[in-house]
């Protein structure tokens, strides 16, 4: 008798679970139709997360603004953030999770080239629109019609830096680089342009990004006949450690760099003091202030460009009335200019957007404009 009763309870239980699941799925389906889902892939933890988190905040700010103004064609925008931790494997996993498991074909990311380049073919074959807010290698956006970039290419700024250093009167430099895909790109761009101008790259040190014992790299620089030091490592913090060791060895030469962020300045422990650098991070003062008020932290690389990437996607969806990645990619390919939080973005016709760089200097451990 008890066994029969148990069976009845079990049957009622199963029916209840099935009914609840059906209601949840139905409600979720209705909810899905009221929203437009996009994804983001970035470095949200570990080295490089200063850029990734700034981008994540930029995306969230844009989404909040879009939804506060009534959404896109009446639908709210929802973003699914995925942390790739700066690893190519994690980046591919995050992409597969968004595209294959969640059917999201509009993604903002990735933070760095090392995590973005492995996604080029995947994005192309799955017809997934991606806009990177801080990736520097042209191979990303030039690899597929579905890929865009709201951050200027690394080599452009590196070439400008070579001109800047040469015009400052330096002819023999040491380069602090790193064994990292995009840092090598920056190093080569600087090196080639500097040599083209008539300068000499006396020595290049390129430790592994994870390296901590860099005393001998610093010694190589100390031993070289140079009149300036150039760092092409920006967000890779081993560059800051080399600079620290160079200072400990008593080398007192002018230092130049590109795209330095606050994390690198902190890691250098004072060794980056008075270093001049070129950067594409020149957001509008309005965006800078709003960001600071909202998050209570100084704006970093990726923030305004991720905001612009989100706004560009919203504009494309609104204008085309579609969320189809191919239609959106075609629309974005025809955007020639866009005034956003990063400044005036000008399309290079290959999926990349460029804007003016500025010269800044490290003073008292903070970033200041060069007068």
């Amino acid at each position, binding site marked *: 008798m008890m066994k029969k009763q148990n069976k009845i309870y079990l049957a009622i239980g199963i029916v209840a679970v099935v009914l609840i699941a059906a209601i949840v799925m139905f409600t979720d389906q209705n909810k899905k139709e009221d929203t437009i889902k996009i994804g983001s892939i970035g470095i949200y933890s570990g080295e490089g997360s200063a850029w990734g988190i700034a981008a994540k905040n930029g995306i969230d700010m844009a989404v909040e603004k879009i939804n506060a103004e009534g959404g896109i064609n009446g639908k709210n925008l929802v973003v699914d953030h995925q942390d790739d931790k700066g690893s190519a494997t994690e980046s591919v996993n995050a992409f597969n999770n968004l595209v294959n498991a969640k059917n999201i074909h509009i993604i903002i990311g990735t933070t760095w080239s090392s995590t973005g380049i492995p996604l080029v073919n995947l994005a192309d074959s799955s017809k997934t629109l991606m806009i990177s807010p801080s990736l520097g290698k042209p191979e990303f956006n030039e690899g597929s019609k579905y890929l865009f970039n709201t951050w200027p290419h690394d080599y452009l700024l590196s070439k400008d830096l070579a001109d800047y250093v040469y015009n400052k009167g330096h002819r023999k430099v040491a380069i602090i680089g790193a064994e990292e895909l995009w840092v090598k790109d920056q190093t080569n761009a600087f090196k080639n342009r500097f040599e083209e101008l008539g300068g000499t790259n006396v020595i290049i040190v390129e430790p592994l990004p994870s390296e901590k014992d860099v005393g001998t790299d610093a*010694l190589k620089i100390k031993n070289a006949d140079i009149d300036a030091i150039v760092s092409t490592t920006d967000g890779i913090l081993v560059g800051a450690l080399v600079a620290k060791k160079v200072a400990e060895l008593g080398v007192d030469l002018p230092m130049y760099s590109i795209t330095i962020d606050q994390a690198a300045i902190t890691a250098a*422990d004072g060794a980056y003091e008075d270093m001049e650098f070129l950067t594409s991070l020149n957001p509008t003062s309005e965006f800078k202030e709003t960001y600071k008020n909202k998050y209570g932290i100084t704006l970093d690389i990726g923030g305004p460009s991720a905001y612009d990437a989100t706004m560009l996607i919203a504009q494309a969806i609104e204008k085309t009335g579609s969320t189809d990645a191919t239609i959106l990619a075609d629309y974005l390919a025809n955007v020639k200019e866009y005034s956003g939080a990063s400044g005036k973005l000008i399309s290079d016709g290959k999926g990349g957007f460029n804007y003016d760089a500025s010269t800044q200097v490290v003073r008292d451990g903070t970033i200041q404009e060069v007068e």
Partner: protein
Amino acid sequence: MSSIAFQLLINGLIAGAIYALVASGFSLIYSTNKFIHFAHGAVIAFSAYVLYFLFSVLGINFGFSVVLAIAFASLLGYGIDIAVYRQLRKKKTSSVILLIASVGLLILLESLILILFGADVKTIGFIKVSKGIEFLGAIITPLQIFIIITSILLIVGLFLFMKKTKLGKAMRAVSDNKDVAEIVGISSEKIYSWSFIIGSAIAGIAAILIGLEQNLEPTMGTNLIIKGFAAAIIGGIGSVHGAVLGAFLLGIVENFGIWYLPSGYKDAIAFVLLFIFLLFRPQGILGIKRRAEK
């Protein structure tokens, strides 16, 4: 010796001293427990973050913060032994399972650091960057001198501790033969715990010095334990003094090596040295000496 060669030697000694600080505690734990405690790296990292929190965030006196960080390291090591390894030992698990547990603990503790302190790089900021002191044509900072001296004192201290004290002798007895040691009344469980307490206290000292010399990041423990482990194998796994010798050899070979090779080959140099030892002297530097003594 030219000033360059002397500077390279100094650089090698500094690197070696850091590896030695990691390898000595790691090796002490291995010698008694007979399994590879990879989470030792995370104990170092966690203690360095504790120092950062006490000194840089709370503004507690540096000396007091140092004492608390070392005490924390000891307690953490002891806690790990009691909560995880002892439970596994009770179930008579193999060294392989203990090793897997240690890797799991390493990842768990690093994730905990990430949650508690965030992903960004931290600096303790006790010493500002300045030019080092000139010594026979080479330059060395006061902190680096302190790191080398501390390592040497630690080695001497450990040597005396193992040879002269009752606890040290008991540790050696358990290390040589656990069953015989128990017959003569030594509690192996107590010795295991003591090795974790002392080994982790050394990790705490390492954490302070490494934290001051380098920056802090959640995954720093993994990088440290890889080099510490390599040093321990080169020196002779299970021999604390061998591990220290291996650490200095590793540091010196790496630094002389990258003077001639591109910087990116540094880890390759370390592992080539490790492979050479594994192929031709698998018992490590002191392994031969110990066998000859026997």
